[in-house]
């Protein structure tokens, strides 16, 4: 049972802990009775396990308070910033900490600010492309209130939305076009026809606790504007997955929350940020118990299999994900293709959508053509943890399509690179044929705006979008095919379902495109094969000819009944 009553007291005490205590008790008893020390130490768990257990099992450690008892949270709230002010009365540094994080800035903290890297800057993708001029819609996933245009005050502490990450009722929903605000009154969102209600502010405020899968999923499951759109390995099926879908998060397995691996320090959450790898080096918790728990090796070490198993030798060149995430899109369908050039078609003069397989839209007048897929085999590339992403200010080469909007960095010769599985999303998006840059379309806006979804006029939408982004536009545009990569790292299957060796060690197998190195089962020297089989074939022919002549000559000698040789004499002797 996941706690839903808003209290911070854990409902469950995991059986494994009582087992550990019982074992420890038995060991202590054995010691008292004079059992040999050696047998007691054999029962002790491995050193790393104790630390790992402490981190997850001792939930009480994180929850020394019951927020429903806090006086500050009894006041009548009417809006998010009021709740935040109450939070800050105790958690004095929380907003200042949060202001430093990418969840707030939507800017790459490691890049030159002038380049404006980050989804709040000029970074583009091949989904909804960029947020400029589209803020009220895009920023419904911002952990803040009221980012509706470029006047948003990033220094206002009360605008931090504590609730979206910390509330535990599951009822706190932001209005999809509310610039990060929940509905102030009962409102219908035209985009999906759903009715949105204002939150029960006091109830959600008093429920707060450590973020769960549900909290993170509010935004991350819906990346790209819908469930499973962006990441094939991150969708709402991970809210309550079974261990078949994700061996770590499975509620019938380890039941990890996101923060079990995405460890947090002062609201900074461990994870990859644009071109910055999630973890700079491969340390396990046994080597360093303060290492960020973001990598498989943090808990499993770089020799995770039984001693002597060949897979242990693979960890230097092959990421764990490559074998242990055989396919993505296993939970829900994921979008593989988005063609903006097909947008704008109407039926009977009206915009329409058309559903295809998996009950997902394959055409939408507003957005163009889509392709969805389930259970998708990833594409593999050498990866050192860095994924550079183009911005709308970068010049592109329209001659080489698909233009890579983002791509994994890495090479076989780089000791930090390993073969890694990716979802590659492809599509067509507008670009400036003169300036050779991607274009920011103004998509979402009021009927009297230049928004594409108001008039279905690309020219107006692109002029408006580029102006909002502060970027030039020649006025000439076309659509160009692009690709965008997502590392596949969630939805790890149970070990018995991991990839068989021959999925890669065979002709035309998964790693067929990764050349430049010898892989047994896939690669072979053609001259050696031709020469070798030639030699074997020659031997077979030679002995066949030799044997036939022997057979024929033996027969003819027998018919003649003439002089018998050694072989024939032997037969005579024996008979």
């Amino acid at each position, binding site marked *: 049972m996941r706690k839903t009553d808003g209290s911070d007291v854990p409902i469950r005490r995991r059986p494994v802990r009582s087992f550990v205590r019982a074992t420890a008790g038995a060991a202590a008893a054995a010691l008292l009775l004079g059992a040999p020390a050696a047998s007691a130490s054999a029962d002790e768990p491995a050193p790393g396990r104790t630390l790992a257990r402490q981190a997850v099992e001792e939930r009480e450690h994180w929850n020394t308070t019951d927020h429903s008892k806090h006086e500050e949270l009894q006041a009548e709230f009417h809006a998010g910033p009021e709740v935040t002010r109450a939070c800050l009365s105790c958690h004095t540094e929380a907003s200042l900490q949060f202001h430093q994080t990418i969840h707030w800035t939507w800017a790459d903290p490691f890049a030159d600010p002038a380049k404006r890297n980050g989804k709040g800057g000029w970074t583009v993708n091949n989904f909804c492309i960029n947020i400029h001029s589209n803020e009220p819609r895009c920023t419904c996933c911002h952990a803040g209130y009221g980012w509706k245009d470029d006047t948003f005050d990033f220094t206002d502490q009360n605008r931090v939305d504590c609730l979206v990450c910390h509330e535990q009722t599951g009822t706190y929903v932001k209005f999809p076009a509310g610039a990060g605000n929940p509905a102030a009154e009962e409102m219908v969102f035209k985009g999906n026809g759903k009715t949105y209600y204002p939150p029960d502010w006091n109830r959600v405020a008093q429920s707060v606790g450590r973020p769960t899968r549900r909290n993170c999923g509010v935004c991350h499951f819906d990346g790209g504007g819908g469930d499973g759109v962006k990441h094939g390995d991150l969708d709402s099926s991970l809210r309550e997955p079974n261990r078949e879908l994700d061996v770590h998060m499975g509620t019938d397995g380890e039941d990890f929350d996101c923060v079990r691996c995405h460890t947090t320090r002062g609201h900074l959450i461990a994870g990859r940020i644009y071109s910055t790898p999630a973890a700079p080096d491969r340390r396990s918790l046994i080597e360093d118990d303060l290492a960020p728990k973001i990598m498989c090796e943090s808990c499993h070490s770089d020799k995770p299999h039984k001693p002597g198993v060949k897979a242990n030798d693979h960890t230097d060149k092959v990421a764990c994900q490559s074998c242990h995430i055989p396919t993505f899109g296993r939970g829900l369908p994921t979008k593989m293709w988005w063609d903006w050039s097909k947008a704008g078609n109407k039926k009977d003069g009206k915009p329409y959508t058309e559903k295809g397989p998996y009950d997902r839209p394959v055409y939408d007048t507003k957005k163009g053509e889509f392709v969805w897929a389930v259970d998708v085999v990833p594409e593999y590339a050498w990866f050192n943890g860095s994924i550079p992403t183009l911005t709308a200010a970068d010049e592109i080469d329209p001659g080489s399509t698909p233009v890579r909007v983002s791509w994994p960095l890495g090479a076989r010769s780089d000791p930090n690179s390993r073969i890694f599985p990716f979802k590659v999303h492809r599509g067509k998006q507008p670009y400036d044929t003169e300036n050779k840059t991607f274009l920011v379309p103004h998509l979402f806006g009021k009927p009297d705006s230049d928004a594409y979804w108001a008039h279905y006029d690309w020219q107006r939408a692109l002029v408006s979008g580029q102006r909002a982004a502060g970027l030039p536009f020649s006025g000439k545009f076309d659509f160009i095919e692009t690709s965008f990569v997502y590392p596949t790292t969630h939805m790890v299957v149970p070990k018995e379902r991991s990839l068989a060796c021959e999925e890669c060690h065979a002709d035309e197998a998964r790693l067929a495109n990764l050349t430049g190195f010898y892989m047994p089962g896939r690669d072979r020297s053609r001259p050696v094969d031709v020469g070798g089989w030639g030699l074997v074939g020659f031997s077979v022919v030679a002995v066949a000819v*030799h044997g036939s002549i022997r057979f024929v000559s033996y027969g003819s*000698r027998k018919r003649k009944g003439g002089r*018998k040789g050694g072989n024939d004499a032997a037969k005579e002797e024996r008979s």
Partner: protein
Amino acid sequence: MNARERLVTIYLYTRFERFWHWVQAALILTLILTGLEIHGTFTLLGFDRAVEIHNFVGVSWLILFVFIVFWLLTTGEWKQYIPTSKRMYDVVCHYSIGIFQGKPHPIQKCVDRKHNPVQRLVYLTIAAILLPIQMVTGLLYFTYNHWEAWGIDFLGLAGVASVHMIMAFFLLAYLVVHLYMTTTGHTLSSHIAAMWTGRDLVVEGTTVEDWERAKDKT
């Protein structure tokens, strides 16, 4: 020699010789089979099981090979493999002409002389060159992950794998001929029977010249 020559049964192959011959045969067959599957020639056991078996059998053979060499050295049987060109012409003539005329083998086996000059040459080449190369390349293949630490990563897996494959093809071709040659005894199966029982048929009164003896006369 004439048609009236008598054949006698002699005890040629000792128990350990027969043991290592057949165990080695089984190991080589398994290695060729699993090796070809790892190479990607066919799918039978599945890649990982083929690799597992190939590695285990390879190491087993290495251990057996040490015992074989030790036995050859301590018993003096290594002298059976001293190469010679004397009378090789006779043997070649026999297999290319005489055998079709029903003539007896020019070199009859005996305890002191188990192999004819062609056999000596072939077996020595296999045992002293081919198999050691196969073992070294196999071990290198097996220890690929340590190459960098050992400072031998200039080798390249493709090269090592190719040499290993070339030797494997030689062995396979040899195996074809070797199996066929077992049929050239006094009966089709007498050579194979000899490798099981240790006893083979030879023409009575076979003489061995001193130079070709594996053992001293005494």
